[in-house]
Structures are given as structure tokens and as C-alpha cells.
């Protein structure tokens, strides 16, 4: 079936607008789109979106992570093998993280990472035919926000929820950060790490995020206010 931007799409549909744009200039096909001989076909169920000038993708529901380059993910170190750590990122196989891909690490000066540690890292290599590879430094050798996440609490959620809360127009984090202080790291692989001053506050952030999955922006704002007032002891 032929579809337009903004339509609800199913795998096997095709969009001629993309092909038409592609004739004029280069277009970027994001997740859920695939070029075949005659048309650009949809591969996932969801909504077809466009960002000007030339980026197209399908917003779809997904829980299982499939590694993709340059995404920030949260993983758990499961094994030390030679000069590699093996990190579980929730994909079909573990990702490799070299001892040397930490800020200031040398052959002599190894980073202190133990099995079971939670790591916030960037996908360096993510090809379907190769083992995924992570790094904890940027291209200047600086660690930035990447590295081992100490303390805190990790939970899993769907990949959409991560995309939703990281979307600049989503009011969730904006509303929450005004209520009480906390630290948060969201991995594109459907894992969220949070750290707040008390256990109560940590759980409150967790519930607020999980509860936001099927809510609209206005409902999210109301929910945040509600949670804040419960936490402050105004409402029991």
C-alpha cells in the first residue's frame, strides 16, 4: 500500500514521496526503511516521520536492542577476557570494551572495572556481521559523561520510552528536575540508571519514567506534580 508522511504504516508499504525527494537530493533513510529495486519500503509497524530537509524514519515499538553506531548505551560487565571486557548490552551478543578505551588508560595503568559494574559507553562498531564494540572516551580521548556508573539503580524499559524521554519536547525530565535533585543516564538499549539522595526519591523517579510510557505531554506534567506532592508528604 502507498503511504504518506505521518501515516500509520505496516511492513510492506511503500512511500513515493521519499523516492521523489531522492531524485532531487540525497535522502537519509532511518530505522524501519529500506530501499529496494523500485520503491522505498517500510519494514516496521509504526508512524512514518520526516525531519527537514531529508531525513525519514519509522517510529515503532520495540523492546529488544539491536546495536547501532554512535548510540550511548548502559551495559553490565560480565567477563574479563585478555585485554577486553565483555559487556552485556541486551543485544543478541555481548559487546567488547577494550581496557585502553578509558580516559588516561595505558598498558600499565589499567582502569578499575570489576565484573558486575554498570558502564555508560558509546557504540563504536555496530555491524550485523561483527561483534559490537564500545568505548568510554570521545574522539579527543576525554571521558565526558561516559564511564563506570557508581551506586544508583538500573532498570529496563522499552526502547521507545528512552527515545520519548530524551526527546527535547518531552516535559518529563523538565518537570522532574524542578521537583528534587537526581542523576540520570538513559541508554538507548532500554536501560536507565538513576541516583537520587534517598531510596524514596530514586523509586519515585523510576515510577515517573515507567508511568510516562503511554501518557500524553499534559498527562505527564500532572503525573509529575502528583508524585512530587506525594513525596513531599502533602498527600499520602
Amino acid at each position: 500500500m502507498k503511504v504518506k508522511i505521518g501515516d500509520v504504516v505496516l511492513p510492506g508499504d511503500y512511500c513515493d514521496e521519499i523516492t521523489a525527494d531522492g531524485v532531487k537530493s540525497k535522502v537519509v533513510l532511518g530505522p524501519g526503511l529500506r530501499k529496494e529495486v523500485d520503491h522505498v519500503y517500510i519494514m516496521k509497524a509504526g508512524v512514518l516521520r520526516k525531519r527537514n530537509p531529508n531525513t525519514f524514519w519509522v517510529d515503532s515499538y520495540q523492546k529488544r536492542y539491536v546495536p547501532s553506531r554512535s548510540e550511548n548505551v548502559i551495559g553490565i560487565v560480565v567477563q574479563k577476557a585478555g585485554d577486553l571486557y565483555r559487556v552485556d548490552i541486551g543485544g543478541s551478543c555481548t559487546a567488547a570494551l577494550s581496557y585502553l578505551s578509558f580516559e588516561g588508560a595505558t598498558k600499565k595503568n589499567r582502569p578499575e572495572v570489576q565484573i558486575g559494574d554498570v558502564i555508560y559507553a558509546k557504540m563504536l562498531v555496530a555491524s550485523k556481521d561483527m561483534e559490537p564494540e564500545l568505548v568510554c572516551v570521545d574522539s579527543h580521548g576525554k571521558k565526558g559523561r561516559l564511564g563506570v556508573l557508581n551506586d544508583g539503580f538500573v532498570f529496563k524499559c522499552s526502547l521507545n520510552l528512552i527515545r520519548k524521554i530524551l526527546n527535547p519536547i518531552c516535559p518529563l525530565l523538565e518537570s522532574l528536575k524542578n521537583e528534587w535533585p537526581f542523576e540520570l543516564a538513559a541508554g538507548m538499549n532500554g536501560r536507565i540508571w538513576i541516583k537520587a539522595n534517598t531510596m524514596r526519591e530514586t523509586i519515585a523517579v523510576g515510577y515517573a519514567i515507567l508511568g510516562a510510557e503511554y501518557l500524553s505531554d499534559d498527562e505527564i506534567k500532572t503525573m509529575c506534580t502528583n508524585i512530587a506532592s506525594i513525596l513531599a508528604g502533602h498527600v499520602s
Partner: protein
Amino acid sequence: MVAEDFKDFKLKPMKCELNYLSKSDGSAILAQGETVVLASVNGPLDIKITSQSMEKATLEVLFSAKGGKPNVSDRFKESVIRQTCETAILGCLYPRTGITVTIQELEDFGGLLTCAVNCTCLALLNSGLSMKHVVAAVGCALDDSGNLVLEPTYDQIQSAAATMHFVFDSRAKTLVTGFTTGIFSEGAYDEALERCRAASDLVFDFYREVVATYCKVIG
């Protein structure tokens, strides 16, 4: 996530809930009339090296009947569903991994296998795996006087001279899978194929409605 009611004079009413199971990567429960099937999809996952394929994902289908021991006809159902899914999933995007589909029969009042195929397709949509197209299964029965009945009831199947089931893809509505029982003429086969092909549109519309109901909130 969503419950959707779909009424049509041609097909049995379909009701579906996606993401029915919290732990699997994709799941769906589908009722077509009285027949109810639950399907769950997991993957792409790590599997043992002997069953890995360099070219594409290895698909494994498990069908559990409502009661009793697994038997040869369950293997047959698994084979039908597996081969149908293999044409629909873009397995080449997930080499050396495994995709597991588990189907649980809950109620069987006729048309179990068509319901299972449709339910599997919905679970695959929910899992977010890349697919070439979606598939829709439609069944029909030929009674003794040569009349075609779409989506027959349990009693109609028992008394039918022949039953035919077809699965179509959503792109060109070509035949993906088909299986028949009983004896019938070539003319009856052609008519059944065309009627079912027309009816498959309703199933595709139903898929679109199900997806539309949850699409508003995931963005």
C-alpha cells in the same frame, strides 16, 4: 496495551491485545470469533553455534496445543508457521542470531491455524523485527452442495467436503502459504482463492487499526 473490536459481516470479529506478556520482546493475544491464540516472539538472541546461519537469522517455532502430548500434527503446524514467517521476516539483517516464536493455543473453535498465523504476525509487529511484508491468513470451507463459507465455524468444518486455508502477503497479495483438506474441483479452488484474497484486506485493515491505536503515544 490496547483492545480493539472489529466487526464485519464477512469475517469473525477479531479482538487483539498487543504486548500481552511483559517479559517477551513481542507478544500478542488474538481472538477470532471463539478461537483464541497467544503468541510470543523473542529475538534476535544468541544461539548455539551449530544452529547459527551465516546468511540469516535462524527461526524456531514452538507450538503448544491446549492439552495432551505434542504430536506429529503440531510439528506440521510449526512447519507451516515457520515457513510463512521466514518469507515475512528480513532474516538477512540479523545473521548468526536466533528468533524464537512460541504459540500457545488457548481455545479452538475452528480456524486455529489461521488464527495462529495472524497472531504470530501481530506479535512480530509488536517485537519491532524488520519485516518484508505482513501476512494475513484466511480460511474457508466448501460444503456438500458446493457453497463456499468464509471463516467456517467448528460445526461447518466437521461437515465440510473440503477446507482451504490461504496466507497472503500485503504487497501484491500473492499466495505465501496454502493448505487444503478434502477433495474439490479446480473451479472451486480458484473461487476460494479469490474470495480469500479479497477477505485478506479486512485482516490487513485490522492490523493497521491495532497499530494506529498505540501509535499516538509512542512517539
